[in-house]
C-alpha cells in the first residue's frame, strides 16, 4: 500500500505507523461543563464506517510527521493525505 505523502510523494505504508480515527485531533475542552461526557465519547466511541474513513498515520521511518489519510476501508484505496498539522490549523480541508 502506498501513501501519497504531501511533501515526499508516494511512500510505502511500511514506513508508517497507524494510530486511528482522525477525530482524535478534536480533543474536547477539559474545562467545559460537559467535559466528562465529551471525554467519554472522545476516548471510547468511534465510528467504524464501511467506506471512506479519515485516519491518523505517523511517518515513523520518514520525516516523523503526522498525516491525515483518507482511505476507503472496503477497497483499501487511499484517496488523499494531508499533514495533520495543516488539518488542525485549518490550512487545508
Amino acid at each position, binding site marked *: 500500500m502506498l501513501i501519497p505523502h504531501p*511533501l515526499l510523494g508516494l511512500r*510505502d505504508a511500511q514506513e508508517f505507523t497507524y494510530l486511528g480515527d482522525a477525530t482524535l485531533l478534536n480533543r474536547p475542552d477539559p474545562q467545559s461543563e460537559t467535559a466528562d461526557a465529551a471525554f467519554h465519547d472522545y476516548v471510547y466511541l468511534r465510528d467504524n464506517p464501511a467506506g471512506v474513513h479519515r485516519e491518523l498515520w505517523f511517518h515513523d521511518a520518514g*520525516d516523523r510527521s503526522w498525516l491525515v489519510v483518507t482511505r476507503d476501508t472496503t477497497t483499501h484505496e487511499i484517496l488523499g493525505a494531508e499533514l495533520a*498539522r495543516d488539518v488542525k490549523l485549518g490550512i487545508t480541508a
Partner: protein
Amino acid sequence: MTDLTPRTALGATAARNETIGAYLIEENTELGLASVAIPAETIPPVLFGLTLPKPGHLTLEIDGKFAIWTAPNQWLFATDGDAHQDCAALVKSKIAMAYITEQTDAWVAFKVSSQTSGQINTLLERLVNLPETATDTGKATRTNIHHMSVFVLRPTSTQVTFLGPRTQAGSLWHVLETTLRQQRANSGALS
C-alpha cells in the same frame, strides 16, 4: 592522567573501509552533525552560505558543510572532517531563533561509491523501497533498511551515504556488505 583511545562505532581505532566488486564502502568517523529546528512560519536562515533545502533534498557541500531536510522546519546540519568540534555550538553561533541539538555521535555514516551512477542505482534498488526519483542526485531522505531507520543521501550520482543509528552500526555495515557481496556473486553468475 587516564590515557583513553577513541573507538569508532564499529569498535575499531580507525575507520573501516572495504572494496567489494565495483563498490567501495567507507566509514566516515569525521562527520559532525547538529539538528536545527525553527519555529513554524519563520523564514529558514542561511547557514554558512547554505540555503536550507526543501523536503527530500540536501544541499551541495560548501567548505565541507552541508544540510539535509529531515522534517517540516527541521534540518540536519553536517560538517565533514569536524567530528571533534562542538557542532551544535558552531550552529548556535550563527542562528539565534532555532532549536539546535548536537547529533554527532548519534549517527554513523557509511559512504558507498562506485564508477557509474547505474551501479549505485542497482544497489539502491536492492536496499530501499523508494522510487528512483527519491534517491536522485541532490536528494536525501529517511526510510527503512532492514527494519532500521536510515537517511539515504545522494550528493553525487556515483556516491550514496547512509546515515544510520550509531547503536546499529554493525547491523548497517552487515547489510551493505552482504548486499554488495550478493550483487557481486549474482553478476559473476550472469556473466
